[in-house]
Every structure is written in structure tokens, then in C-alpha cells.
């Protein structure tokens, strides 16, 4: 990868397995990713691919009892977060790492005024006084595009519209000036015109603050418009990653291509059938040997079912496939 500034966050072989009666469920199974200041890393995948668990694993926001085993490293600004004592993670979370989740109504406290929720973090983490926190809260609401901030500080979440609520959660995430923002489907619950406002806002704030952002989404359209780099997850693993433009234009992994082809295109003929992926994602309790996409892959050969492909490539574009697109088809698939 071209050397820019040092990554804000670097995960190496991150692993989160959940305990289930049938055995450990490999929700995140050896993921290595990093994100630099001012850049946005998109993580896409379908339900159950592990993208949300990955995000939550970074900041230790998973129920401890449910976890069977964890592994790997998460290096954040020189600090090791994986296996760090809860007090250390608590201090980082909300201060140096901000978080925005999908549903603003459930991430805001319904019986606390917006102002209190905004100033709590600042007063706790930064130790600023009530007046100063209030002043900063007003500035933050203005920065996220909320008109009449003084009045809104006294409002309760239910008095705000969905888009306003999400703006408030973004303001809360930014309150302590974090160097990394984790956003999990931040616009999925919003209408499309409001989604476009929130995505623009996130982009603007990221550039102004030179903040790193990890954006988890299922929407290839959102990824295309808002991210610099992209990681595609399937069954707990990253199958392809690289600069967003490269992954879209020079797709190498068959799963990435299948995801892109399943989107209805504007230039399709009326009634044209969409490309689909046969079968269903594998069980993560008993994943298939070799490549996890092999049972559904049109190019799969014997080697894919026997040996797991490493995530490899050049120029920052890496893919986990024995027979990537652009290479000749494997002999077995031709039959």
C-alpha cells in the first residue's frame, strides 16, 4: 500500500467467536484492516457476514458472556485495545473513538434532554465545566446542521424527526473530537433524501477534522459515493479489499461481482432478470473447508474446496481467491 500517514487503527487477524449450543460461531474469523486519518473505510457485506460484530469488537461493545473466544490485535493510536482492561477501553470509547449506530431512537436516551446527552461525554472525558460544555454543544449542533440549537438542546429525542435524531447522535459522537468514527449503517433507517444529507454531512466533518471513519453498510451505492477504501466481507472473512474505485472497476473476487450484479441497474431492459447467487451463506458454526464461498461460486474448483485462499494481491488491492476474475478460469469450472 502506498505509504500515507500512519493508520489510526490497525486490526490484525481479529477474531470473535460466539458461544452457541452447537459450538463456537465464527462471526469474525481473522480480519486484518486499517484506516488512515481523514480517510473513510467502507465495510460491506450481507446479514451475518460479520461486519457489525467486527465494528463492535474494536471497541469491546459485545456481551462478554456470549463470547467463546477472541484473538488478534487492534492497535489504535499506539494503544492495544484487544484484551485491554475495560477501564482502558471505556476511556477510549466515546472520547477518541466516536460511534454512530443505525437506529437513532434506540441509541439516544428517551428520557434525557438532547443537551444533557451531548454534554455528558465532554464533562466526563474532558472535564470541562457546565457552561463551557453547553457552549460546545451549541457549536456541535450547528456543525451538524441543526437550526435553532439553543432550543434543540432542551428538546427530548421524541421531539425530533429521524434525520434530526441522527444528526444529534453524530454530534454526540463528535463531542470529544475523536480521531476515529465508527458508523454502523448510519443511514439505513432514514429516507433517501435524508440519507443523502447525512452522508454529505459525514463526509464534510471527516475532511474538516481529518478524522478516520469506518462505515459499515449493506448498500453498494452508499459505499461507492462515500468511501475511499472498501472491504467486502463474507461469512466472517474479508474476501476482497482495496481502493473503492479499484474494487468496483477491477473486481477480482466472484462474490464481490455477484453482489454488484444483484443490484438492479438503471440501464437494464424492462423485465430483465437479475443475476443471483445460488444457495445460502454457510453456517458459521461449521463453515465449509477451503474457501467459504466455494459452495456458491460459479468458478469453484477442487482446490477451492480443499485449501483456504489467502488474502493477497498488489498495490493495496487484495483478494482471497484461487481463481480470481481476470485470470483464466479453472479447468474444473469449465466443464
Amino acid at each position, binding site marked *: 500500500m502506498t505509504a500515507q500517514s500512519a493508520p489510526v487503527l490497525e486490526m490484525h487477524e481479529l477474531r470473535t467467536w460466539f458461544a452457541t449450543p452447537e459450538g463456537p460461531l465464527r462471526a469474525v474469523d481473522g480480519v486484518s484492516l486499517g484506516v488512515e486519518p481523514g480517510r473513510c473505510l467502507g465495510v460491506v457485506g450481507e*446479514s451475518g457476514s460479520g461486519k457489525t460484530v467486527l465494528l463492535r469488537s474494536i471497541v469491546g461493545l459485545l456481551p462478554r458472556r456470549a463470547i467463546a473466544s477472541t484473538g488478534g490485535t487492534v492497535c489504535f493510536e499506539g494503544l492495544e485495545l484487544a484484551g485491554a482492561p475495560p477501564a482502558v477501553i471505556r476511556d477510549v470509547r466515546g472520547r477518541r473513538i466516536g460511534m454512530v449506530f443505525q437506529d437513532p431512537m434506540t441509541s439516544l436516551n428517551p428520557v434525557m434532554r438532547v443537551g444533557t446527552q451531548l454534554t455528558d461525554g465532554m464533562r466526563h472525558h474532558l472535564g470541562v465545566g457546565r457552561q463551557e460544555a453547553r457552549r460546545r454543544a451549541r457549536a456541535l449542533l450547528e456543525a451538524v446542521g441543526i437550526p435553532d440549537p439553543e432550543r434543540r438542546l432542551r428538546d427530548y429525542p421524541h421531539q425530533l424527526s429521524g434525520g434530526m435524531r441522527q444528526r444529534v447522535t453524530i454530534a454526540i459522537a463528535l463531542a470529544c473530537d475523536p480521531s476515529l468514527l465508527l458508523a454502523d449503517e448510519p443511514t439505513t433507517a432514514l429516507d433517501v*433524501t435524508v440519507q443523502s444529507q447525512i452522508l454529505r454531512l459525514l*463526509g464534510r466533518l471527516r475532511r474538516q477534522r481529518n478524522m478516520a471513519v469506518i462505515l459499515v453498510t449493506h448498500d453498494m451505492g452508499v459505499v461507492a*459515493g462515500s468511501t475511499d477504501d472498501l472491504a467486502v466481507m463474507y461469512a466472517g472473512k474479508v474476501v476482497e479489499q482495496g481502493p473503492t*474505485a479499484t474494487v468496483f*472497476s477491477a473486481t477480482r473476487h466472484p462474490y464481490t461481482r455477484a453482489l454488484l450484479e*444483484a443490484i438492479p441497474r438503471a440501464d437494464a431492459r424492462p423485465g430483465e432478470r*437479475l443475476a443471483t447467487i445460488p444457495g445460502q451463506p454457510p453456517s458459521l458454526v461449521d463453515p465449509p473447508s477451503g474457501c467459504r464461498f466455494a459452495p456458491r461460486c460459479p468458478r469453484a474448483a477442487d482446490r477451492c474446496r480443499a485449501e483456504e485462499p489467502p488474502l493477497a494481491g498488489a498495490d493495496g488491492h487484495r483478494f482471497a481467491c484461487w481463481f480470481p476474475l481476470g485470470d483464466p478460469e479453472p479447468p474444473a469450472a469449465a466443464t
Partner: protein
Amino acid sequence: MTTATVEDGPLRPGALLRVEDVVVEFPAPGGRVVHAVSGVSFDVLEGETLGLVGESGSGKTSIGRAVMQLPPPRSGRVLLDGVDLTTLGRRQVRAVRPRLQMVFQDPLSSLNPRRSVRGVVGEPMRVWNRSRPDIDARVDELLSAVGLDPAAVGDRRPSQFSGGQCQRISIARALVLEPQVLVCDEAVSSLDVSVRAQILNLLLDLRERYRLTMLFIAHDLSVVRHISDRVAVMYLGKLCEIGPAASVFGGPAHPYTAALLESVPVPDPSVRPSDEEVLDGEPPSPVDPPSGCRFRTRCPRAQPRCAEEEPIMRAVAPEQFVACHFPLTAGAPRP
């Protein structure tokens, strides 16, 4: 048959389903009224698919339910094959229902968890006292038609299936009585991209096979564009624009349609969204909608006239109708 009370032009003679000036209202706290749908007219020819798009609160679901008489609209007419459903008594409406069926958004909650798949799909026929052999044969046919193996799935419960499979079961149930009109309310919205593609293909196949007329309600424009012959755009209880899918998507005449289309994230990183806001603010409350044109409070082209006079539907192109005093015309620069 009395002549229509609407003077606007989009209604065509001989349509299978005809919605005339439908009004749906709900009581709100304080004796106020939610104006969910305020005088909407459209029609669907036999074998045609009309896509109904709009954001939350636009009234698209209320229209779908008004068509189904669940409940009947406050005023206006819903004609199926020339028969006004709103004038029928309860027994008569029941007799018509087999011709009008619905598929809902959440496949799991719309299926009885205690019944077997065979029981769920055959239930509508049992209600109509069809003979056991008839039911068995028809259920087998429908399960196969939606891509499920009747022998393998028939005795299992809905909870044993994935979201996509549950939606296949819902579709089989909706089609078991050989309806003429299928109302799909966000039928693919909760599904993953690859599963969504499978269900869309299935709907396209079934539409041909059973000559279905469809009202396809969705907020996802790419999906609506893919499946619809004609598209109707709703905003705050009113129809903004209606016309052939290619015309509405290719040359939107209503400023709201244009903004909606521009807000959709494009799955192509070379098309970067501009930093400019497409549309400011959020829709006003349907309890107290703006005077005149309901979109005027957010419309970039709004003039004083828009607040005083409500625009009526008029033709801007062959079969394309718009309710706007200052529509966007082909080639005209955007203000």
C-alpha cells in the same frame, strides 16, 4: 356507472384497478387528523405493474391498504373491474378479496409461526371450503412455482426458514386463490441484496406465468424502476407525478421526483455525489400539511403561486402527468 369526479387525465378507460380521489385519514391526539392520503387517483391496466414510490409518511402504504379495503378509505372510490369496492357490504368485500391479494414487508411476522408451511399456504383455500385434494394439488403447484420443494418444506414451520424463503412462502400464499391483482408493500425491502434479486426475479416470472396485475409499493427506486411499467411518485399524501417508468426516471417533471432520483446513491465510485444538498429539511407533518402544493416548503422552484393554488395533474409528455405549476421540462436548466 357514474362518471369520474376527477378532471385530471391520467385515468384510462378499461383499467382493471382504478383508484379515484381516495382520501385516507387517521385520528391524531388532540382531536386532530393525520391526512395520510388526500385525494389520489391512478389506475392499473390488466397485466401492468404500477410502482408506487415515496418516503416515509408519503401515504403509499395507506393507499395499498385502501385498495385492499383494509380499512376502506374515508372517501373516494376503488374500482376493480368496474365494481366500486367501497360501496360493497362486508360479505361482498369478502367475496372479492380472493381477486386482490397482498404481500407484506416482514415475511416472518406475516406468517403464522404455529402452522406448517402447507397449512399457511393452503389456509386461504380452506377459508373458501375447497376440497382437500384441490388444496393439496394447488399448494404443491404454488410451492414449486416459488422455488420450494413441497415434499421437503411442506411440514416445516416458518421459523425454520430464512427471510428470503419466508417471502417465497408469503408469495405462494398470496397466489393460491389465483388473484388478478397483487399488492406488494415493501415486499423485498427487508431482504439482503442477493436474496432481493432472487425474489424480484421470482415476481417477474410469476407475473408472466399467472398474468398478474401488480401494485408494487416500495421506497427503493432502483427496485421500482426494475419491476414497474409505470411509476407513481407520492409526497405527503399527494401524487406528484405518474407516467411510464422510462419517462419518469429518464425525464422527471416534478422537482420532488428529480430530487428523489438525485438522492439515490449510485453504485459507481466514478459518480461522486456533489457537496451540494439535493433537498433541504424533511417532510412536514401530515397532521398540518402546507397549503397549495405540499412540496413547496422544500421545493427549489417554489413561487408565491405554489402556496395559494394547489397544482392539478396535467400532461407534460405522452402518458406522463405531473402536479406542479412549474414543472421541469426536457432540456430546461435546473434552477
